[in-house]
């Protein structure tokens, strides 16, 4: 079984977000990059398939050489090989096209992408990739179990879960719940050493135009200071919420 996990290189969740070039691009100075958390839940689920069912796990990212440390980290976690498609990930449509071109060359039984990246939050790569490949896609996937070539799946929906079935190959949008936070694998020294020997190949990007362009960024307006109410005086809080904030 061949599993592909699509990885996004994103700023650490605690990063302060700043922009440069007159707010036209993200300022990565001083920012620590990590595996997109939703992708890491998917990678962990893939590693379980490797351990229990002998799956081969390939990770892929679209980006320049600065993304390679996180691919090495994926290899240290346990992925068998890594691919970097050498192009700036200009938008979700562009990335989905690059991944689709790779998937058409290789035969993957299962393709896992995070439900969304925590930087651009486009939440489109998995769905578009599946459509380009004419495969089923399950967003917000919180359970994946396999019997033969049939998968039993769960999707988180507003206020509950949906239970589904599909045949492989298919594309999943991973999120927390597919595995637990405590299941995430912290690479050990042996994994890190082995990762150096594992193949990391660089592929040329295919020619495709992005469907969208970012004109500029802006940060939310600074808010005023908190208005404190005495703990003994909940009446005042209710009054403020009713008459000042007008939300009750």
């Amino acid at each position, binding site marked *: 079984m061949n599993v592909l996990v699509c990885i996004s290189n994103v700023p650490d*969740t*605690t990063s302060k977000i700043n922009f440069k070039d007159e707010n036209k691009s993200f300022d990565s100075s001083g920012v620590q990059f990590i595996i997109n*958390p939703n992708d890491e839940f998917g990678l962990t689920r893939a590693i379980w398939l490797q351990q229990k069912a002998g799956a081969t796990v390939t990770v892929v990212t679209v980006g320049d050489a600065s993304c390679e440390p996180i691919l090495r980290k994926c290899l240290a976690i346990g992925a068998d090989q890594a691919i970097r498609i050498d192009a700036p990930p200009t938008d979700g*449509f562009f990335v*989905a096209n690059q991944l689709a071109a790779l998937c058409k060359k290789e035969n993957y039984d299962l393709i896992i992408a995070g439900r969304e990246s*925590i*930087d*651009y*939050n486009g*939440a*489109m*790569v*998995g*769905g*578009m990739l599946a*459509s380009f490949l004419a495969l*089923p*896609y399950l*967003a*917000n996937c919180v359970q994946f179990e396999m019997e033969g070539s049939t998968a039993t799946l769960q*999707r*988180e*929906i*507003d*206020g509950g*879960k*949906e*239970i*589904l*079935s*599909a*045949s492989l190959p298919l594309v999943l949008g991973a*999120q*927390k719940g597919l595995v637990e*936070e405590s299941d995430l694998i912290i690479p050990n020294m042996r994994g890190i050493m082995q990762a150096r020997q594992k193949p990391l190949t660089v592929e040329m990007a295919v020619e495709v135009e*992005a*469907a*969208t362009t*970012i*004109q*500029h*960024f*802006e*940060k*939310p307006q600074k*808010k005023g200071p*908190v*208005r*404190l*109410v005495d*703990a003994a005086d*909940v*009446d005042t*809080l*209710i009054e*403020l*919420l009713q008459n000042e*904030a007008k*939300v*009750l």
Partner: protein
Amino acid sequence: MSVVVYVESQNGIIKKAGLEVASYGRAIANAIQTNLIAVTFNTDDASILNTHGVDKVYNIDTEGDIFFNVNRYSVSLASIIENENANIILVSATANGRYLGPILAAGIKAAYVSNVVALPSSYDPITVKRSCFTNKAFNECVSNQSRTVISLSSNAFGLKEQTTDAEHAEADYLNSNSTLKVTATDSITDKVTIADADIVVSGGRGLKGPENWHLIEDLASVLGAATACSKPVSDMGWRPHSEHVGQTGKPVATNLYIAIGVSGAIQHLAGINSSKVKVVINNDPEAPFFKAADYGIVGDAFEVVPKLIEKLKAIKQ
């Protein structure tokens, strides 16, 4: 040219998010002087759309397919989009809307823009403001395609009533060859969901244990609010993942967010940044949440919350 909006319904009833995205669609249709066409599936009574500015309604009968079917919905919508020559297509940022958006966009060769928070600042080319970096920033996003699918963030536009004399039209529920089949849903139907709620009451580690969650639930119940929690609370298994709010959980864009015993980690604050009014109740005056909140009480949740519940009950009666 026209605007097509997918209006979501649940158990035959149109969701608030569906009316909001229809209201948003009306404003766009007005701006570019075109028609707003709504597409809904299995809705018992679609006439409410006549009061939210829709010019034409396709209420598709799914012939007993009671579950949300992303592929069949997508192809059925695509056919209407072709027939109506629509260049702007709108979905809401519900779980289903966000699932449908990119699949539909790929199917009709459209650009897809998610998390949109305002009306387009330009229509040629379509340029919209969207949130990114989990609400820590926004960007102006330009569509390079002749068609654009927009997913509107919850509560970003609000409901705007406008009465129209909507034409009700028929369309087929088209087939897809996807192997993906929904077999069941497991939903709590008597509770307000985070996506639909005007008010969300959220609890953190300060509540000391799941046995104290009646405080959150009682306050939510008197306010008609949804319940939520911080990441540590869901990681410890006190509450289900579906309630986890923040960067790796759910975003919350509600009118009023009340955080009780939540310290306010940067990831949590990012997730709730789009909420309009934030209230924090925490016994630690140094908790970072106080810097993000509009109103705050420094005090013991176990004393403050019961008093709050009691007062609110008295008001509501």
